């Protein structure tokens, strides 16, 4: 477990590791941004993309953070996140991105959920998630 990172650092590491594969959010004015976001559960007040092209990464809290206090009265928080990879391009897979991200985040990777292939019966996108835990001082 790394000594101290935060959600913004995690987001940057994901974006850097997947720079060759990450898709794009496309906005109403045709602007585009890398398709990676952190779901905080707070209703967004910023412009929302109209569509997603390619691979999207959604980082979401997995469980409530656990706060622990040391005898020295210093405290730390163990944060757990689920990094969900969704493939909007129906001709491509998330497999390479999952492998790339697993290696890039191996210092805080705690698990990989099973691959959910595209299911035409329910029109689902292919997706797979990585579970992350790190300590915040």
């Amino acid at each position, binding site marked *: 477990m790394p000594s101290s990172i935060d959600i913004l650092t995690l987001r940057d590491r994901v974006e850097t590791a997947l720079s060759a594969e990450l898709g794009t959010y496309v906005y109403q004015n045709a602007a585009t941004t890398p398709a990676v976001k952190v779901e905080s559960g707070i209703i967004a007040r910023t412009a929302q993309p109209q569509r*997603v092209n390619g691979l999207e990464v959604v980082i979401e809290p997995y469980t409530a953070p656990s706060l622990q206090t040391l005898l020295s009265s210093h405290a730390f928080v163990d944060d757990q996140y689920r990094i969900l990879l969704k493939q909007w391009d129906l001709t491509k897979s998330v497999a390479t991105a999952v492998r790339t991200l697993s290696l890039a985040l191996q210092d805080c990777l705690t698990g990989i959920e099973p691959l959910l292939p595209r299911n035409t019966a329910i029109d*689902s*996108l292919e*997706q797979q998630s990585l579970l992350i835990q790190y300590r915040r001082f």
Partner: protein
Amino acid sequence: MRSLLCHKGMAKVTLDIRSISQGLLAALDDGAKELESLYFDAIGQVSYVWPNKTVRKNQDVVGSPRDKVDLGNLQASTSYQISGLTATFEWDPKDPTTGKPYAAYVFFGYTDSSGRVLPGSNWISVAHNIRSPEQIIGGACRAIFN
């Protein structure tokens, strides 16, 4: 367990590993049955948040929160195997129309190609919040070794 009082006034206590091992296996067997029942009930619990109304195959119209029971295939597919001191539970229902397995989509949730996010339903956590496996197996051990 066997205890022996010898002529020096000393007691020896020896654990009978075989009977302890048999007791643990019996406790795991009893605990697994209880867990299976808990998981079954958890799938039927009205606690799952869903983004819209659904007309189910059984003709019920359900909103949110809801249970995860339509035709009951997911509940009915609950099974487990015991190997050594490990109980492994599985759910592997098949869609009656397509024949495809669907438990993982219910459990983890998914996004459809229109962008609709359908949340997952972790019935294992729901069951463990009612009674944890440690409590269940601990209780079964106490009942057997008492």
